[in-house]
């Protein structure tokens, strides 16, 4: 038998009454302190689950509510009738520091697993389940916008351009026929020696990069990396992964928003950079296979990457974790060094 003090609110006015609740062994509760006294079966009450030491509310069948600070007494009464097993379990989870410590470790592990394997795997499956038209829609009119804002027509000699395009066409001939791989040469002061892929299979290469390369094999190594981005559908996957992480973060620590949005943006950016590095690695592995299948020595990739890095100026050490590309050392390891 348990008893406790509570404030009784009838729901018709805001006036409260001090009452005493007595839980008896027959599964009934008796309320005294108001006229007339009340008696209900425990099963007809709706008792809120425990949240920390905030007051509990006990809703009565007559529309009234009892509010009490005596959480332990309520729990004892419920335990005697074996009610709210899960809620009491959760409260125990929320109270004991050893559980909390274990949970903290589990949370860290779950976040790590989700960011490293869960989200990328789900995004990969979802992307490959979508038709290639999705990638094409993603790239629609992108090149036109870039031509308007960033690019000028290529100033390479026509014969050089045609030779490059012919080399490119024969190299991509055996690839997935659903993509229409096209080589687009452009001149740009702003982005210098550079190459990138649009998700529909358009590969843009700047004049400066063509001039930086000492032979076609080096250029093909760069093109192979860009084709890897297309074949592995990185644009679509990156959109999905980044939104999934941002959403999950917003859900998991909803409080952050009230503290400041900066605290929420930073981890999203860090995770985004990590995803980006993973995609670069995948594109590198594709390039490796691509070059090997065409009997092109893979060290050409290392050579052009090193030259690109020298042209762009060195990035400071220690910032690798923030960078969107893997370090040059790691990539040289993969492609091998020039003999």
């Amino acid at each position, binding site marked *: 038998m348990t008893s406790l003090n509570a*404030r009784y*609110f*009838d*729901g*018709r*006015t*805001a*006036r*409260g009454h001090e009452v005493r609740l007595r839980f008896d062994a027959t599964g009934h509760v008796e309320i005294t302190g108001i006229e007339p006294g009340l008696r209900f079966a425990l099963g007809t009450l709706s008792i*809120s689950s425990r*949240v*920390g*030491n*905030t*007051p509990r*509310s006990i809703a009565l069948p007559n529309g*009234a*509510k009892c*509010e009490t600070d005596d959480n332990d007494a309520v729990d004892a009464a419920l335990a005697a009738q074996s009610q709210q097993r899960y809620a009491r379990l*959760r409260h125990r*989870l*929320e*109270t004991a*520091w050893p559980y*909390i410590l274990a*949970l*903290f470790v*589990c*949370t860290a592990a*779950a*976040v790590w697993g*989700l960011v490293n394997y869960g989200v990328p795997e789900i995004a990969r499956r979802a992307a490959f389940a979508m038709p290639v038209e*999705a990638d094409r*829609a*993603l790239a*629609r009119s992108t090149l036109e916008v870039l031509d308007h804002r960033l690019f000028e027509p290529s100033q390479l000699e026509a014969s050089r351009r045609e030779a490059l395009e012919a080399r490119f066409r024969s190299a991509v001939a055996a690839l997935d026929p659903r993509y229409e791989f096209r080589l687009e040469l452009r001149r740009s002061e702003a982005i210098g020696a550079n190459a990138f892929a649009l998700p529909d299979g358009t590969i843009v290469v700047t004049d400066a990069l063509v001039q930086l390369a000492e032979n076609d094999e080096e250029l093909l190594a760069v093109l192979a990396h860009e084709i890897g981005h297309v074949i592995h559908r990185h644009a679509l996957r990156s*959109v999905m992964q980044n*939104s999934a992480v941002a*959403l*999950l973060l917003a*859900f*998991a*620590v*909803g*409080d*952050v928003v*009230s*503290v*400041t949005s*900066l*605290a929420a943006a*930073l*981890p999203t950016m860090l995770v985004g950079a990590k995803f980006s590095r993973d995609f670069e690695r995948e594109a590198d592995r594709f390039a490796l296979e691509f070059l090997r299948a065409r009997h092109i020595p893979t060290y050409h990739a290392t050579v052009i990457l090193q030259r690109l890095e020298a042209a762009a100026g060195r990035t400071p050490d220690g910032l690798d974790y923030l960078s969107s590309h893997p370090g040059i050392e790691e990539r040289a390891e993969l492609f091998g060094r020039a003999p």
Partner: protein
Amino acid sequence: MNQAGESGTQARFEFSGRAAEYFRIWIVNVFLTIITLGIYSAWAKVRRNRYLYGSTSLGGAAFDYLADPVAILKGRLIAVGFLALYSAAGHFAPPLQSLLALLFLPFLPWIVIRARKFTLRNTAYRNIRFDFNARKREAAAVYIGWPILIPLSMMLLYPFYVWRRAQFLTARSAYGMQTFEFRANPGAYYLAYLKFGALFLLVLASGSALFVLGLTQTDSGSRVAAVALALLATFFALLATFSYKDVCVANLTWSAIALNGMQTQCTLQTRRLYWIALSNLFAVLLSAGLLIPWATIRMARYRVSSLRLDGAQNLDALVGTQSESIGAAGEEIGEFLGIDIGL
């Protein structure tokens, strides 16, 4: 706790939440949300709000958060579905995105009303629920009409709009059978924004002066240091200026809510709020998020404890009413799109 004043009894809002206790509830929430891929977040929101509401008391009785997690989950699914559609349209078919935004506009008043109604209906005090009853036409005027007029008036109408929005949200709210009154006038908001504007210009001017002074340093090392210092000082001064404005508006709004001869009084101080917000930010960043619960509790304690109710002897006379349940879609969509619905 209660003191007799000239206008009758004063009752302070009190906050009894503790960071160590809330941390444990929070970490369980985060864990369950992550392993259920976000599904549990609806239950987590209810537990979080139950803790924060339950830790807030007035005149010896606590507030109660009664929302049904399943309603919140449904609302979240609708909100996420809409956002996914909207952002997918942005990536794949930009014209469709503009069309979606246009189609969405007529629903905005509905969302505002439903969001506020959901929050207030699920807030109870002394076994009586709050409520919100507004016409869509008025919500449309406040949330669509005014925002169109403001740029046309070169922002001169902005303080009036802030007042109008607070008035709409307060005066259409109810506690049981009683309707709230909003007792502020637009003039006070204009004065607050005038002070803010003057302060803002002063900070910008002195910031630029410091910047120029930094540029005139002859030594290149001290030039970089001086310029960086000027930028940093300006940044924190601007942050303080915005805190000042937020505190002024919050004090005006929260001191104007009247019910049955009672009125709230809000006495936030810029200095303290700025300090709490800034130290919270650094604590959260440096602890990789672990101090989020501490920051939440600290901020809630300060905000709640700066609020009091004058004329509290009238509390007991307030009358309740019956009410039915309501869906959460409006609130969740509003929350996701960052529509400013709360006071």
